[in-house]
């Protein structure tokens, strides 16, 4: 479904991604783990069209999308839920969700989708008139995910959904990710919480300073001695 080949991305003079290649099959949850500064968010930003690669290509459903603008990529069905949630703080929960459905023109479909989101995230229904900025961290994460799902993604890119959340909320968020995946959305999950990410993923890639240093089935990666010592605190 998604095939990234030899991706090289620069921030000015900084070589952030040094020839990354990986792929994701339809229906999978693939996780990218790695420390701060490894290039995980850069990779997601490049796939979603916020950044563009100097060398290499991003292929989605057989089509080269490396040079497409972000808004075109959303229309193709890739939705990126950014790190730090990035809720529109001065817009209500309802308006945030409407923005998520910006590419959807059918009003009825937006209504249905919103109903489905309130079903899945009941807390958002209670707070729908509240400004996004007044929600707690966990609620904002729920809103960010619901907002992403409003666009009917085929592939969901999640950047650190567990960041700054209490363990019980992290569990909840990961359950929801699994749920979403079972309903047919493929997921590319970037995480620092390697243990949680590996426990729900099918396959995993380990990213270190712009390179992929390890890849394989999530279960194998979880048992890799290097991963255990570096990311699982073993």
């Amino acid at each position, binding site marked *: 479904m998604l095939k990234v080949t030899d991706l090289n991305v620069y921030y000015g003079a900084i070589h952030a991604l040094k020839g990354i290649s990986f792929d994701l099959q339809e229906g999978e949850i693939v996780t990218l783990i790695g420390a701060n500064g490894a290039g995980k968010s850069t990779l997601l930003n490049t796939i979603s069209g916020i950044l563009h690669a100097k060398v290499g290509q991003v292929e989605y459903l057989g089509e080269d999308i490396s040079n497409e*603008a972000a*808004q075109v990529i*959303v229309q193709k069905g890739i939705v990126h839920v*950014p790190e730090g949630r*990035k809720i*529109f703080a*001065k817009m209500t929960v309802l308006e945030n969700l409407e923005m998520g459905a*910006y*590419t959807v023109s059918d009003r009825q479909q937006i209504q249905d989708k919103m109903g489905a989101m309130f079903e899945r995230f009941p807390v958002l229904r209670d707070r729908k008139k509240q400004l996004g900025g007044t929600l707690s961290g966990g609620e904002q994460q729920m809103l960010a995910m619901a907002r992403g799902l409003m666009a009917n993604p085929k592939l969901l890119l999640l950047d650190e959904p567990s960041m700054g959340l209490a363990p019980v909320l992290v569990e909840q968020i990961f359950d929801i990710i699994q749920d979403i995946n079972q309903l047919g959305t493929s997921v590319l999950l970037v995480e620092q919480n390697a243990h949680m990410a590996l426990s729900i993923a099918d396959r995993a890639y380990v990213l270190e300073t712009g390179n992929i240093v390890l890849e394989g089935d999530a279960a194998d990666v979880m048992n890799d001695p290097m991963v255990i010592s570096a990311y699982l605190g073993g």
Partner: protein
Amino acid sequence: MESNLKSPPKLTRRNYSKIIRPIFGLLVFGSILWRLYEVLIAQQAYSAEIWVRLLISGLIIGGVYALIAIGYTLVYGILFMINFAHGEIMMIGTFAGYFLFEATKSINVAAEGSPPLSFSDAYPLISVILAFLVGMTVAATAGFFLEKIAYRPLRKAPRLVPLISAIGASFFLQNAAQLLFSPQVRDYTNPQAIARGSGWSLIINGSRVVITYTGALTFILSILLMIGLYVMVQKTKLGKAMRAVASDKNTAALMGIDVDAIISRTFIISGALAGAAGVMWGLHNGLVHFFVGFLPGIKAFTAAVLGGIGNIPGAMLGGMFLGLIESLGPTALGISYQLKDVIAFVIMIVILIFRPSGILGEVLSEEKV
């Protein structure tokens, strides 16, 4: 030698301004209050009809300022730059309206044999509507191209660069208008029905106070446009997308919003409002020339700062407030009416010193600064 003793507080620049600022503030506000007391209470120098007259003219000019100020604030909200060419966009709207009235004035619709009757005198309502439509369309188009040519290529440049480009664009537009339309000052040809100075009369204390038709039109139309804009920004998909882009461009793009298209539309809307303000200015004040946008432009900028730049209700409130202060201020302080511009700019300086975020503005976060 190690010492854990705290050194006594030095008179740093920061402390210095902490001491000086309140003293300066007290002096300014104290002297204003004293002056107001003297003029209004001790001398009772002016009677009610004068105040009503000034109030009316303040509301009218305030409406014009508010419409222009919205343009500054919309653009600032999205690009964090001051569009210093905005006054010239208004000037372009004034000229567009002027030529439309000239055209409708020159069409004779009188029946054969009867005295000549121009289209604009025969159908004033249609002419005025046409003039506003043309003025707003032309100014909106100008705003669109201004952004495309002068600002878009500099989107990723440091923030000072588009600002310089804006000043350059302002000079360019002024000079282009001077070359195209000559530096002469022209009279706006209002339709007869709304001739300047004509209006409804009120009798207050036995003297006549006129509410001019052009003034009433300006005030009512500016209020309607402001309501329309506010509803648009709050309720429509475009308005919500504008707010989303203003709050975070990257995240807005991740929602599938075409950020460049939204920025273009922001300039179109700002331009249309400035164009409407320009036609109002022409109809009410009667003069048009290449420099006509400068003073209202800079006043409206003051109004936007006063209300809190980036904040739409702030711009409306700031515009009205500035119009009223400018109109009532010189009389209330017992100084020459010619000093109204001084009052407006003193207000800007005072606001920048004491409350840079304006009346309704919030303190800017690090990211936005």
